[in-house]
């Protein structure tokens, strides 16, 4: 029993470690390095031969060895073990997509029969997938900030006092479950509809087994979003694509920066929801929530959100009871 448990534990941890060489993972070594290369070129172009100094925070031991950074890694590994137990694997998506694929056909949806080549279908499907995926990420993120019960869990991500690429894993397991449901919904609906409309032609445009946009996003410095390196894309590009500097604003403790820049890849959603702010190479920001959770470890990051969530629900119930009582009192003769 113990032996098989330990084997499972080691396998899961080894799988987590393999992310460092897996091109499908944002924290793969290749992307960590390509981010440096990309930033180096931009800084050299903007600031000349001393531009590289702006990259120093990326490798600062003070940042990487900080308690906040260690918590990032702790949460990454512990969440992985927990989610491996909680979230059903692979076939869940297949079952949902199968069910919806069958349902659409029963509702009368049929193949379009446009005679399009598989390449065009791939391009269209990839475009729709990227848009749907990016918007659903934006909207989930927006909800995580606007709905108090959800913020109780999302504060884990914002409790980081310093940002490193591994802050991407700084997530509460409940939030991990929400991300799973988000991807399940988007993929099930989109894939099932496309399979009915374009049977045997649906595929994603990939590079080295990675979605083309994800690949480009990661190669061109996605890891800088969670780092102490400040890189703006400039005002024109930032209207369309979220830069590392813009995401860092999202993490800022400054009240003026609250609930800004929820986007992942595209900035258009933030502009639509009036939450867009441009970034700047010169910005100096502080990160964290300003609460006790900022300085707690893995257990605290699992536990405090649960307590906060219970508080939010309790306050909500008490408030509703009071309102009800008030209304009943007014009606009494």
């Amino acid at each position: 029993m113990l032996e098989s448990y330990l084997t499972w534990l080691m396998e899961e941890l080894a799988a987590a470690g393999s992310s460092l060489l897996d091109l499908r993972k944002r924290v793969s070594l290749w992307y960590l390095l390509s981010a440096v290369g990309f930033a180096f070129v931009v800084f050299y172009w903007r600031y000349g031969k001393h531009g590289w100094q702006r990259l120093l925070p990326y490798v600062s031991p003070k940042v990487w060895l900080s308690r906040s950074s260690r918590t990032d890694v702790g949460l990454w590994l512990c969440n992985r073990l927990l989610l491996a137990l909680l979230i059903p694997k692979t076939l869940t998506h297949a079952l949902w997509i199968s069910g919806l694929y069958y349902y659409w056909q029963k509702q009368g949806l049929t193949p379009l029969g446009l005679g399009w080549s598989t390449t065009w279908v791939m391009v269209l499907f990839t475009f729709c997938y990227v848009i749907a995926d990016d918007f659903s990420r934006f909207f989930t993120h927006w909800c995580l900030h606007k709905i108090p019960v959800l913020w109780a869990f999302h504060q884990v991500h914002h409790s980081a006092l310093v940002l490193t690429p591994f802050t991407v894993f700084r997530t509460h397991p409940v939030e991990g479950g929400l991300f799973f449901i988000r991807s399940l919904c988007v993929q099930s609906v989109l894939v099932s509809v496309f399979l009915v409309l374009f049977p045997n032609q649906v595929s994603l445009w990939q590079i080295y087994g990675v979605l083309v946009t994800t690949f480009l996003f990661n190669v061109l410095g996605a890891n800088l979003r969670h780092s102490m390196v400040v890189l703006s894309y400039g005002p024109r590009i930032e209207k369309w694509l979220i830069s590392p500097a813009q995401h860092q604003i999202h993490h800022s403790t400054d009240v003026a920066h609250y609930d800004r820049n929820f986007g992942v890849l595209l900035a258009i959603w933030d502009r639509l929801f009036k939450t867009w702010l441009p970034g700047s190479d010169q910005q100096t920001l502080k990160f964290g929530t300003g609460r006790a959770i900022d300085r707690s470890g893995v257990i605290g990051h699992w536990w405090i959100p649960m307590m906060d969530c219970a508080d939010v629900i309790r306050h909500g119930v008490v408030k509703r009871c009071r309102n009800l009582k008030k209304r009943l009192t007014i009606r009494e003769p």
Partner: protein
Amino acid sequence: MKKTLLSLLVACSTSVIAAQPYEFGVTLQGYDGSATSSVSYGGQIARHALHNSLKKVAGTGDQAQMNTYFSSTEAGRVILDPVSKDGFPVKQSSIDELSSGKDLLSSAYDGVITGWPGNPTGQELLEQLVDAAAKTKAGYDPVNGYDYVQLISKFAMGAVFYNKAVNHYLEEKLEADQHPNNEAYKPGTAYTGKEHVWDEAFGYFGAPANGLSLSAKEVVQITKQNPEVFAKADANGDGVVDLKSEMAFAHAYYAASVDASAGTNYFHTIMQAFVDGRQLISDAKGKALTDAQRTELKECAAVIATAWQQVIAEAAFKYAGSVYADLEKIAVIEEAHGDVSKAYRNYVKHWGELKGFALALEAAGRDLGNAQAGLDRLIGFSPVLFGDAQVVALDGNGGFVQANAGPMQEYKLNMIKVQNLLAQSFALKAKLNDKTAGMSDVLEQLNAAAQSAEND
């Protein structure tokens, strides 16, 4: 010019190596008999002939005849299939010419089969199927939706051939203390222990010895005894096809059939691994295999076991698609108030093939993970019948108990799920009769997301 000649030479030498037949000389040290070949798998070919013949008689419902080819070991049994045809004469006409004293039942899987009511062992299930077939007209039970000819044949191939090869000869018999290579298999034989163990597994696959020089289409046509491929089949040119070494049976046929339709390479992958493994044993020149040699041999065995399992799963995938198509046809005929009896017969036949292959996957002691429970539940104990009923259990007398299973047409959704489950669990490549519109390929691409909880 030199480069062209060189590449031609390399290509030729490669094709010569690739086309090596399954023929190997005697290596047993101290052997002083007259045999020049150490290859022997007559017993396995006898069982193939028994299976083919059983399939023939299962369609008559004659229990005594079925038992002759299923559980009896009596002498004098005539081969009912394959038999000589115009333009395709076959050398043997009796089972004894291949091997005497052989039956199918005693070699069948004796572990539990969860996909059939009552959790019988593989042997018990085969017995049940044969008994039940005898109570029907021509092996067809329209009330419960069973085509016993298909169920018996497809399951027997798994429970006997696949099981004995993968679960027995290519598994435990490869250990150092089992039939060592520095000893005769039995006193007086011309082959060593390991040589014969490997040969027996090869025999169960059912490929002709010259399989590497045949295309997948030719292998298929050999099984169908097409006179046009007779010259290819008759490798030694003696004017008859020797069932022992020149015929294609069972899963070798299915592997080639999948390859011929989909352009995959299952047949030659398995065949090449068998030849490579046997060459390795031959190269040991009658000495005990070292640990390193056995490791290499086990790698060949793993290639065979994986591809063999995929072939069975590919066949199940294909018939799940046929069941789906049959249900569509039934719906169309019903809507037009036509006669559904022929479409229903096909539905039951294809379900029998699907179920037989799915049960075969369970019949070799290999861990299928959650795929086993998934297949059992999605396929069920019978097809969904008219009146939306499905067999759900056995009663105290061994009769089938039916219960409501939801609308018959909804069973199509189960077939889509079955195809996805098979494609994902066994990494299928051919995916013939795909009714999922290519879903498993997209799912594979999307699985990149994995399990990490990543924030934005």
